[in-house]
């Protein structure tokens, strides 16, 4: 069975005929060609597929694309503008928040959701917001420093995007 899906991905409007059983992560990667969003565990355990749906962080691997009618989807692919990284992306770069990098798209999108709600998070706030995102390389300390770096940059007047 198929559905006509209308939504925006990173600000671009899409109208696609998709199968009802298509997951959002497969829609993003296969239909729109945005492969930044990663498939880690395939079952909502690792958070690598985290994207923003109407500003809220959700797992694209446990969301049927056809339930996202008229939604606003944001992925890691859409953050930078004119080749300029956002404060969060610079934070993950400067503070070595990414090692193998596979969890990083999910980490960045979950952190992006946090900073939009709470521009001045404590370390506990950051740990809470990233609780559903698993990293097997860094031990999380560098990731937390990356988010703190971004929060400081934003507070000092740097634009998020």
């Amino acid at each position, binding site marked *: 069975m198929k559905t006509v899906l209308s939504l925006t991905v990173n600000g671009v409007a899409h109208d696609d005929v998709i199968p*009802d059983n298509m997951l959002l992560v497969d829609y993003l990667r296969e239909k729109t060609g945005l492969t930044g969003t990663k498939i880690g565990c395939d079952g909502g355990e690792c958070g690598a597929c*985290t994207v923003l749906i109407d500003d809220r962080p*959700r797992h694209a691997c*446990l969301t049927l694309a056809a339930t996202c009618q008229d939604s606003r989807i944001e992925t890691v692919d859409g953050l930078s503008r004119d080749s300029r990284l956002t404060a969060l992306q610079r934070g993950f770069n400067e503070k070595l928040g990414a090692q193998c990098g596979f969890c990083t798209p999910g980490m960045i999108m979950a952190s992006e959701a946090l900073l939009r709600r709470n521009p001045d998070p404590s370390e506990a706030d950051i740990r809470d917001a990233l609780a*559903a995102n698993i990293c097997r390389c860094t031990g999380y300390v560098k990731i937390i420093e990356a988010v703190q770096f971004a929060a400081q940059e934003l507070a000092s007047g740097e634009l998020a995007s």
Partner: protein
Amino acid sequence: MELLPDLKLHHPRSVEDAVSLHAAASSGRYLAGGSDLLVNIRRGIEQPESLVYLNNIAEMQAITEATGQISIGGAVTLRELAESAPVRQHFAAVAQAAGEVAGPSHREYGTLGGNLCLDTRCVFYNQSEWWRSANAYCLKNRGEICHVAPGGKKCFAAFSGDVAPALLLFDAEVELAGPDGRRRLALADLYRNDGMDHLTLGQGELLVAVHMAKPSEAVHSAYAKSRVRGSIDFPLAGVAVRIAVSDGKISDLQVGLTGVSPLPFLVRKLDKFIGRAADDACLEELRDAVRGQAKAMKTTFTPPHYRRRVAGALAQKLAASFF
């Protein structure tokens, strides 16, 4: 994981439409957040031909207050439930339990109804098709032997929803809708002690809302769970405590448990604590009473012995915080 089977997804806007769409399908399931159901489908545990999506139904998305009462829609997300001001004020254990489910991204789409109707869980059941086939499946799904209790004919898969034990403290009622109309049921009667068939929902019934009466101001409540990873896991044991203490004596006490048996339940025979002085001896007796009724089986990698002990210890700790 397997691919999702070809299926039809319905998007009803009313409860009545949802029920009739479900009735029209030969093998349909209601879909809310999907964090439990979609995983089970992809593990080959079930293969529905249609899914009826419940999260576009306005009636099921509201939290409404009337005098002394609160109604919470089945499609209210766990994040909304955890952040709701009236729930936090009057039913603290419910808000805390909702805030302890999985991780923050799951709580954005996981719903109250989904958490109450969560499938039971077991280390031999929540595995891939390949894993289970190599193990000759299990009694709960396609197999003939329960690997937890090989001699028996009973399934011990544990109910692992966090919110149910907290709601039980407040005598919550669930409103169900099905092909024969609507009915109300005590939440405790939604469950039976059978890991294979733990919900008493009728064919085609869905959970529309939960209704509760606000307790007196003197009543306090809290929820805590033990889990392998502090960030996202299901409960090894989850404990909800409702308590009131006046003049140093216990005047109200209930303890709800989850994660230790096929159904969430209130610990029995706590009447003996009413009127007792709220002291250390009382707390230790409470711990032992809870431990005695938390009869966990080998449904997790963590041994049942630990889960029994931690259930008692959590009840003791929560009660002590109000003494």
